[in-house]
């Protein structure tokens, strides 16, 4: 129960769609979504495969609680070998698509091979077919969404698609569903584009069954009360969204600015969550129009925003005057502080373009920031950029390059490589603020030490969502720790990593963990799913998933040498704020982390560790 116990295997080369029973032993060991999708990938894909070859696979995976009445039961993940990183990739999205896939009766879709011509997958309950994508290939996500809704004459159709970025081989293309929710990171959209797969359109009319409906509904109601009563999930996130962090992180001196040359940004207040509420511009209206919830969510942190009609980006372009997906904190940081830009409307516009054309704004902003540094050094020239002045602080550079990356045109083709490849191309690899090829997000490890270890050891390349120690180090959730010390951080990171891996496999959203712990998850899973789910079993499932991902990366060729940080964070001290004079103390944390994990000093899980986790 709760799993639909059925997966859809789509062979794009052959053009076939086949139903298969879900491997229930694997479901018992890996739960769903991130864990279960990764298990299928590990079993079916050679870790050394070229991510863009037909031999790589692309897996859309729901969790057992996706589509149930549990709060935030909207989530699905896309699992593959990442185009940007060459590491195992798992990008998580909300919206309504995941629940609809579950309603159609599927836990998972596995795409394999490569279609000879562009196609999209259409699913209506048990029926699945590949259809020629002639009318949507070459279109944006937004246009493809409109065309497919009109073609199938079904307003309830839920669509997940790539934009032109994914078609053009931008290495950090994402997969966008419901117009502005995205499986954003690691180039999962690039893999989708390489398979000539434009979109998945799904309509489901079935329900989701749970093991013990009465206990499940009682438990779910109790847990929703906790979310409603918690000041963060009940008030803070719905009102200000994640963007409330902009001023917090700037104040503590951990806001990477100008490609992490600085840790505080003078313009932070202008691009903050508070600023999104303030009337401005030609109509004296706020940037923020409303908040928005994903399927089943009782938090509703999503931002729906608008660009001022007289702003240079949209003047005489009415197609961008409407309300659409607004700035989340990570995006406001990458497009804003990291590029030195404090024009809220320009950031919002660039974010619209990222949704419209389907690219990851974190990697885009961080790549542009690296290019800006190279431009100011004279390494990148006007000839390279087609005359666009790539100076830090230039809103025009930001929005022009967002449009070029979106279409894979001009200097956007070079930016579309991501910062690692771009900086290598120009002879300055140290200026890429990335780990395992993926750019780190909005927390500087010199000011939040735990995040240095988080980035260095994240299995999908630098990422904040694999172990969000910011919650403890800055926000005091579940308890306050000192962000400037390294002591105790190895254990903190491991605990966050394992718990998050379990949450990411459930179908629920990690933002619930500002109010919930695994103590709140396991009763919901136990009431819904076959078998007995205890706290211990759920925690061990998370640790098993983490080690399985690690094993894939080791087999792909990554070593302990890749568990590091950009040189800047290790050698150039923070210039201001509480962390002034500090660099990341990664070297102090990493050996302890390996030991706590039961790994060798070379970062390899020992046979005992693997056996204890059932991974031998």
């Amino acid at each position, binding site marked *: 129960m709760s799993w639909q116990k059925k997966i859809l295997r789509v062979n794009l080369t052959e053009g076939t769609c086949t139903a298969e029973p879900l491997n229930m032993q694997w479901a018992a060991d890996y739960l769903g979504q991130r864990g279960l999708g990764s298990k299928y990938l590990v079993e079916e894909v050679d870790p050394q495969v070229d991510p863009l070859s037909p031999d790589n696979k692309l897996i859309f995976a729901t969790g057992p609680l996706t589509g149930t009445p549990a709060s935030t039961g909207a989530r699905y993940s896309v699992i593959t070998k990442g185009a940007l990183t060459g590491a195992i990739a798992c990008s998580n999205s909300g919206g309504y698509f995941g629940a609809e896939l579950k309603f159609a009766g599927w836990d998972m879709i596995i795409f394999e091979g490569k279609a000879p011509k562009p196609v999209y997958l259409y699913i209506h309950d048990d029926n699945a077919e590949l259809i020629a994508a002639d009318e949507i290939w070459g279109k944006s996500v937004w246009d493809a969404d409109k065309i497919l809704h009109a073609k199938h004459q079904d307003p309830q159709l839920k669509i997940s698609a790539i934009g032109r970025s994914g078609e053009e081989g931008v290495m950090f293309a994402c997969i966008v569903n419901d117009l502005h929710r995205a499986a954003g990171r690691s180039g999962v959209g690039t893999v989708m584009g390489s398979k000539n797969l434009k979109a998945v359109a799904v309509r489901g009319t079935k329900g989701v069954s749970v093991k013990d409906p009465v206990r499940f509904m009682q438990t779910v109601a109790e847990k929703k009360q906790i979310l409603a009563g918690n000041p963060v999930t009940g008030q803070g996130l719905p*009102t*200000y969204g994640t963007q*409330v*962090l902009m001023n*917090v992180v700037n104040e*503590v001196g951990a806001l990477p600015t100008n490609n992490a040359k600085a840790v505080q940004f003078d313009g932070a207040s202008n691009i903050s969550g508070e600023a999104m509420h303030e009337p401005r511009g030609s109509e004296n209206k706020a940037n923020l129009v409303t908040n928005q919830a994903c399927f089943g969510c009782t938090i509703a942190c999503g931002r729906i925003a608008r660009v001022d009609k007289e702003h240079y980006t949209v003047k005489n372009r009415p197609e961008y005057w409407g309300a659409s997906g607004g700035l989340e904190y990570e995006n406001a940081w990458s497009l804003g502080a990291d590029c030195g830009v404090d024009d809220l409307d320009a950031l919002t516009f660039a974010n619209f373009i990222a949704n419209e054309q389907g690219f990851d704004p974190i990697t885009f902003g961080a790549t542009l920031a690296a290019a800006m540094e190279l431009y100011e050094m004279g390494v990148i020239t006007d000839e390279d950029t087609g005359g666009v002045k790539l100076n830090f602080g230039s809103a025009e550079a930001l929005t022009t390059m967002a449009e070029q990356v979106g279409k894979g045109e001009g200097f956007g083709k070079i930016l579309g490589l991501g910062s690692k490849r771009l900086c290598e191309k120009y002879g300055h690899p140290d200026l890429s603020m990335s780990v395992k090829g993926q750019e780190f997000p909005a927390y500087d490890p010199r000011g939040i030490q735990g995040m240095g270890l988080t980035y260095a050891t994240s299995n999908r390349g630098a990422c904040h969502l694999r172990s969000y120690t910011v919650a403890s180090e*800055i926000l005091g959730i579940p308890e306050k720790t000192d962000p400037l010390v390294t002591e105790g951080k190895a254990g903190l990171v491991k605990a966050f990593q394992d718990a998050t891996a379990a949450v990411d496999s459930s179908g629920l959203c990690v933002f619930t963990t500002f109010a919930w712990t695994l103590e709140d998850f396991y009763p919901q899973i136990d009431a819904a799913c076959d078998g007995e789910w205890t706290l211990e079993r759920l925690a061990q499932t998370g640790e098993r998933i983490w080690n399985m991902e690690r094993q894939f990366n080791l087999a792909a060729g990554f070593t302990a040498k890749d568990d590091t940080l950009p040189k800047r964070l290790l050698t150039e001290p923070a210039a201001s704020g509480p962390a002034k004079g500090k660099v990341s103390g990664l070297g102090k944390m990493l050996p302890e982390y390996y030991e706590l994990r039961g790994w060798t000093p070379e970062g390899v899980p020992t046979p005992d560790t693997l056996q204890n986790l059932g991974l031998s």
Partner: protein
Amino acid sequence: MKINFKLYASLGQYLPANAQNHQISLDVNEGATPIQLLRQQGVPEAEVHLVLVNGVFIPPSQRENPLIEGDELAVWPAVAGG
């Protein structure tokens, strides 16, 4: 002495009308504490969660310690993001 006083998120409503960019420079008595300034501005203590002085977290037990000239006092309700 002068203190730069910052209130964010829902606490912004307690800033004086002439505050800009969520902050205001206040002239306060020597020895003033974070708790005193918050009370002076009418900020309900129950809504105070994150208190930073010069970017450094001040736990509840130390919020009656005196500030010094030029300190930056920044305060939030319970917030989070990601």
